[in-house]
């Protein structure tokens, strides 16, 4: 038997005795039981029509009983469900409004973007036109650059050609091949030849300069004996040093020490720096050349006891065509591009150059040149004349 609390909805009549007989504490009037909440013991299993046993009695009373507590609970649940639902509906409509707002925003943005797209298309067209113009200008510039390079190369060719006869005949005469010379003739010829060499230096510098300008200068790495290259350079600058009674001091790696780099450019770097150290020295001064071969680089120090460089000029000495004043060009000669060529060559090699100087005491250049690797395909062109002829 199940006990439950419920409300009597209808009284269908008892079988025999009144409820009162068995439960005197409750009113005898059955009807007054209707709508009351009773604690009953369920006897039958039917949902609507159940037999009840009320109170202490044993009589069975038949009535329609509904579990109003359950109904109320269900109602409560329903109400709360309805509330939740209403809340959800509210929430949903709020969300809907938010979505609508977003959609409106999006439409506005889309309209804006369409407008911007049009503007961008116009800009793009302009840009394309501009690009075409730029390309044309670039082509023109490249053409001009090539023309300039060719012109410089042609000028260099044209300037060198007459020097064959000028230098050649001077040398033939000086050697007495064209008849004996008087001391005065010999002296004049020697001066003439010195000027010829200077002219040739200028032409060579101009050509180097034009190549650096055109970015056409390429490294041609090879492995070589350091002392062979250095001795060639020393031999070429020694006559000029001797004319001025300069002392040359060398501290070089032992003979046969090898290095991999651009041989020609290293020679050019050394030549230009030594030429300067001689040119800007005082008579009977000293030029020092120290080369140290480290595991992966070459350290070069070139010092002179010359006029030095004022602190305010140090920053400019690597600039093209810089000589401290124009009177220097007359006094010392040269184009003023030697050091800028040195710097370009050192940097092309991935190295660095530094200068320290004291006015009237001298100047020291420190150069660091990293070792290169020889790439196999560069072999043929790589070593210039040395390989070409072998």
């Amino acid at each position, binding site marked *: 038997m199940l006990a439950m609390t419920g409300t009597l909805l209808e009284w269908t009549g008892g079988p025999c005795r009144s409820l009162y007989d068995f439960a005197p504490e409750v009113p005898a009037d059955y009807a007054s039981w209707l709508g009351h909440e009773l604690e009953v013991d369920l006897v039958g299993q039917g949902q609507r029509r159940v037999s009840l046993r009320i109170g202490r009695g044993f009589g069975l009373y038949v009535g329609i009983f509904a579990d109003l507590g359950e109904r109320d609970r269900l109602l409560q649940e329903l109400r709360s469900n309805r509330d939740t639902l209403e809340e959800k509906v509210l929430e949903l409509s709020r969300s809907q409004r938010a979505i609508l707002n977003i959609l409106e925003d999006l439409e506005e943005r889309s309209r804006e973007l369409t407008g911007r797209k049009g503007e961008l298309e116009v800009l793009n067209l302009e840009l394309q036109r501009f690009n075409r113009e730029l390309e044309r200008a670039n082509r023109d510039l490249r053409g001009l650059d090539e023309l300039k390079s060719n012109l410089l190369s042609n000028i*260099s060719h044209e300037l060198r050609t007459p020097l*064959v*006869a000028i230098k*050649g*005949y001077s*040398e033939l005469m000086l050697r007495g*091949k064209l008849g004996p010379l008087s001391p005065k003739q010999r002296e004049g010829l020697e001066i003439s030849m010195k000027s010829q060499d200077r002219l*040739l230096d200028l032409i060579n510098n101009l050509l180097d300069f034009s190549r650096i300008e055109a970015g056409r200068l390429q490294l041609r790495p090879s492995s070589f004996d350091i002392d062979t290259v250095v001795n060639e350079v020393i031999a070429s600058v020694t006559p000029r040093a001797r004319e001025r009674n300069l002392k040359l001091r060398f501290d070089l790696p032992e003979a046969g020490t090898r290095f991999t780099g651009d041989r020609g450019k290293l020679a050019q770097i050394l030549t230009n720096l030594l030429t300067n150290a001689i040119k800007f020295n005082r008579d009977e001064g000293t030029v020092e050349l120290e080369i140290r071969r480290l595991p992966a680089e070459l350290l070069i120090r070139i010092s002179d006891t010359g006029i030095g460089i004022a602190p305010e000029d140090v920053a400019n000495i690597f600039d093209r065509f810089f000589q401290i004043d124009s009177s220097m060009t007359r006094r010392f000669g040269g184009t003023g591009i030697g050091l800028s060529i040195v710097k370009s060559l050192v940097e092309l090699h991935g190295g660095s150059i530094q200068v320290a100087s004291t006015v009237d005491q001298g100047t020291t250049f420190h150069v660091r040149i990293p070792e290169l690797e020889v790439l196999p395909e560069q072999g043929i062109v790589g070593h210039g004349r040395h390989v070409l002829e072998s």
Partner: protein
Amino acid sequence: MADASKHILIIEDEVDANLFMETALQAEGYATKGVFSGHEGLAQLDRQDFDLILLDIMMQELDGIETCRRIRAHERGATLPICMITASVDVEKVVASFQAGANGYIVKPFELDELLNKIRELTERVESL
């Protein structure tokens, strides 16, 4: 003094440079023939043997590289030492000369000894072959 029996053909369109080389080489005892174009040079080769040719790269009409190629194709020129003369230090031109069959080169303007050493080196190289 060099071997007077050595005969050198100079092909150089620059008159002064040509004349200088003739003078300088004759002073050293060489026999020389100077001509001023590639065509004249080839015509000389039709006529006689030479021991070495000095050949300018930059010439009007027939340039030195093409002339060098034609000398190599000539019956007298297959193994003849050819020394190119160039005022340009353009590596590509020099490489092209070697591909055309040249044996060496000197850059203008050259020292007298440079010219004489080069001639000696190239003529002796042939003798030692």
